[in-house]
């Protein structure tokens, strides 16, 4: 028996456990790619449109930071720029979650102990997890390449982009392999890996923002920070513009190094423990913990604070580049039209800020889903059983968690607006005015996020065992309708399914009370319905 004995069996087990998730993953990446390719082909139909796109994108710091370095006026390059961030983050996060699910989470639940007692080598669980994720990335990368090629893009470039995206997934799978050894909990391992994804994004964004524009004005030569980020390497492959395959050697080297580190860490720790030791806690509880609300805050605070930091960093950086926008779209009629369409005004900066607020609202809705689903986590693990066997009523328990979820949602949107306003105010010299104006813009989005909160409560009340999957599906639907709805020219009734569709894009549009009041009413009604159904049902443990 070697350290790798049992790897094949564990890989089959992982594939069996994740068969639905992997299928969705393998189809989502090419699906997004194909949808973006099709809409880009429509909007930038002619060579001159694309030259305009490339020139303005290369000139704009915002575009460089968000879409990566442009690489010439070919259709494939424009598709790459438009789809890159979404595809990269999808591949990175799906890969980290999958690795942690099959390593640290198994240890946390005790499954790994049972497996470890069988004829299974020390390194087999991690190897099996990595093989599974490698297979998923290769498959989704290949399908992405085929989907792009089927849409009329050159085969070589499609393959290069597919490989680059798969490489991102593999890199962050390797990162997760390390964080799963360092942290003693799945939550911690996922959090650390997500932080590394965020860092890689910031490095790449900085490297591309500081980059220089080539002589023809249509390409960006990235600065060094892009070259130390796995997200940057995938750009430097320059799919559809040279297809520099050797760059992927950096990806492979990074992944091998990280996986090697993970194996060394595995060999030097006990099953179930992390490299980070678990600290001791107080012997006696503080008074602030001793109520359902106090417990809920204790369980939610880490998530709220983590989101708050992310939102502020994002808001400051977004706000501070707001004034560069005019050069981004000034000369490109199609892009200008698109932004106008998204923001509903000719004032491009306000349209941009309005769009940013809508994006913040969607992101914060993700927080809301995560926070409300804590209800289900508490129920599924059995912790709720202990609470409800004390003198705490079901409504009191549910509302104590919901209170923090709702307050957190409103607070995060306030922070998003205020930090964007601060960033924008600093570059335009009007801090108080911009902070006030954009805080309002952030808060306007709150009713829609609260509708999402209410929907999750209903799902928790009605279908507890399906609530996690259904809630995230509803959230994804809102994201797709919000981000791609206009681009894909979906009919209005479909767009109306998302609560975010109904809110004005402040500051580009004026705030209006009616949709906010109606959405708040819907949120309250959904919460009441969820509460009523939860009061009437059995507890569903496990």
């Amino acid at each position, binding site marked *: 028996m070697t350290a790798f004995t049992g790897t094949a069996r564990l890989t089959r087990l992982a594939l069996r456990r994740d068969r639905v998730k992997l299928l969705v993953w393998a189809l989502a990446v090419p699906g997004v790619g194909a949808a973006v390719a099709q809409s880009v082909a429509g909007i930038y139909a002619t060579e001159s449109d694309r030259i305009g796109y490339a020139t303005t994108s290369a000139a704009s710091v915002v575009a460089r930071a968000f879409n990566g370095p442009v690489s010439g006026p070919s259709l494939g390059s424009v598709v790459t720029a438009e789809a890159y961030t979404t595809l990269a983050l999808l591949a990175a996060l799906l890969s980290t979650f999958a690795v942690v699910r099959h390593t640290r989470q198994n240890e946390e639940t005790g499954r790994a102990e049972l497996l470890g007692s069988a004829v299974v080598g020390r390194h087999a669980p991690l190897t099996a997890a990595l093989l599974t994720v490698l297979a998923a990335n290769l498959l989704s990368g290949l399908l992405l390449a085929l989907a792009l090629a089927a849409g009329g893009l050159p085969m070589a470039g499609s393959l290069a982009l597919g490989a680059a995206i798969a490489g991102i997934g593999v890199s962050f799978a390797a990162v997760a392999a390390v964080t799963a050894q360092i942290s*003693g*909990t799945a939550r911690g391992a996922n959090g650390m890996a997500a932080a590394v994804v965020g860092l890689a994004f910031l490095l790449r964004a900085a490297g591309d923002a500081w980059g220089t524009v080539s002589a023809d004005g249509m390409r960006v030569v990235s600065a060094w920070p892009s070259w130390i980020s796995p997200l940057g390497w995938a750009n430097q492959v320059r799919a559809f513009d040279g297809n520099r395959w050797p760059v992927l050697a950096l990806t492979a080297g990074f992944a091998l190094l990280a996986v090697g580190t993970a194996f060394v860490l595995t060999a030097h720790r006990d099953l179930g423990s992390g490299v980070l030791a*678990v*600290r*001791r*806690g*107080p*012997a*006696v*509880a*503080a008074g602030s*913990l*001793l*109520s*359902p609300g106090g*417990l809920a805050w*204790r*369980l939610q605070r880490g998530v709220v604070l983590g989101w708050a930091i992310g939102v502020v960093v994002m808001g400051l950086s977004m706000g501070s580049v707001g004034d560069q926008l005019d050069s981004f779209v000034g000369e490109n009629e199609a892009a200008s039209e698109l932004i106008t369409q998204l923001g509903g005004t000719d004032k491009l900066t306000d349209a941009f800020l309005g769009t940013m607020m809508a994006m913040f609202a969607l992101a914060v809705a993700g927080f809301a889903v995560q926070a409300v689903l804590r209800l289900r986590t508490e129920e599924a*693990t*059995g*912790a709720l*059983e*202990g*609470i*409800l*066997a*004390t*003198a*705490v*009523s*079901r409504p009191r328990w549910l509302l104590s968690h919901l209170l923090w979820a709702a307050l957190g949602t409103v607070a995060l949107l306030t922070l998003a607006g205020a930090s964007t306003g601060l960033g924008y105010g600093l570059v335009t010299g009007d801090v108080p005015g911009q902070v006030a104006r954009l805080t309002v813009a952030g808060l306007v989005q709150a009713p829609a996020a609260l509708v999402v909160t209410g929907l999750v409560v209903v799902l928790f009340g009605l279908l507890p065992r399906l609530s996690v999957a259904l809630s995230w599906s509803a959230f994804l639907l809102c994201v797709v309708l919000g981000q791609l709805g206009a681009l894909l020219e979906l009919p209005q009734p479909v767009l109306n399914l998302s609560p975010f569709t109904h809110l004005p894009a402040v500051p580009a549009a004026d705030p209006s009370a009616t949709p906010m009041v109606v959405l708040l009413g819907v949120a309250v009604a959904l919460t009441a319905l969820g509460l009523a159904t939860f009061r*009437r*049902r*059995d*507890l569903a443990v496990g």
Partner: protein
Amino acid sequence: MTAISVAGLVKTFGTTRALDELDLTVRSGEVHGFLGPNGAGKSTTIRILLGLLRKDAGEVDVLGGDPWRDAVSLHRRLAYVPGDVNLWPNLSGGEAIDLFGALRGGLDRARRDELLQRFDLDPTKKCRTYSKGNRQKVAIVAAFASDVELLVLDEPTSGLDPLMEAVFREYVTALRDAGRTVLLSSHVMSEVEALCDRVSIIRAGRTVESGTLAELRHLTRTPMTVETERPVDGLADLAGVHAVTVSGATTRFEVESGTLDPVLAHLARFGVRTLTSTPPTLEELFMRHYGDGSAAAPGQRPLPAGAR
């Protein structure tokens, strides 16, 4: 006075009938053993008693209230130790104990500290580092330090070592002496025998036996072994005597309770040298209901369900 009274309780999950007209009566001030194999419906019953699950049919009364409707007010008067204690990984054991105490309406601080010491539990450790036994100790300490009328304990000692088990028994005995009521679901027969005034045995969602240990024994035959000066004969003809085997001076048989007197008179004529009677242990009673033929002692047939 009854603390818990359940009659004709039915609970179905999908097509599975988990509880099939279950009956259970727990008198105030007694320690009541609740026995049954895995999947018999013990935990389901307890969850209905706590208002965590909703009954489909039947009557349920806990401390004079309806556990579903009056959950909150009843829960101030009872404490629960689940079979599988799940805590919050980032809270310390001490925090979890104080939390449960506070949510139940108060906790005796001195008794809490005494219990921590007696159960040898380190309250500063995070719950994620606790073993199953230590997680159970957290729930036990929180329950025993609360001033409540009724304790509902679902296999509370399944993770405890024998030393801790002894401490547990000591506290349960003290609780009974203080007039508290305890419903104790358990697989540890010696524990139930040592602690319980009355027991209920359930099988496949139905109560098959209920009563004091003496009553349960009364319902079954007692195996006896007698050594006599002269070989015994004619014993099998007496009423209530079964499974007689004679091998030389030693005779083994089983006798129904209530028919012992004529049997002893009969045996006396053969010159009794030794006489041993081994009343069935609870374990044997239990196995008779659930064990296959192999598990029960030879010649003992299971009593029909509901024989009493």
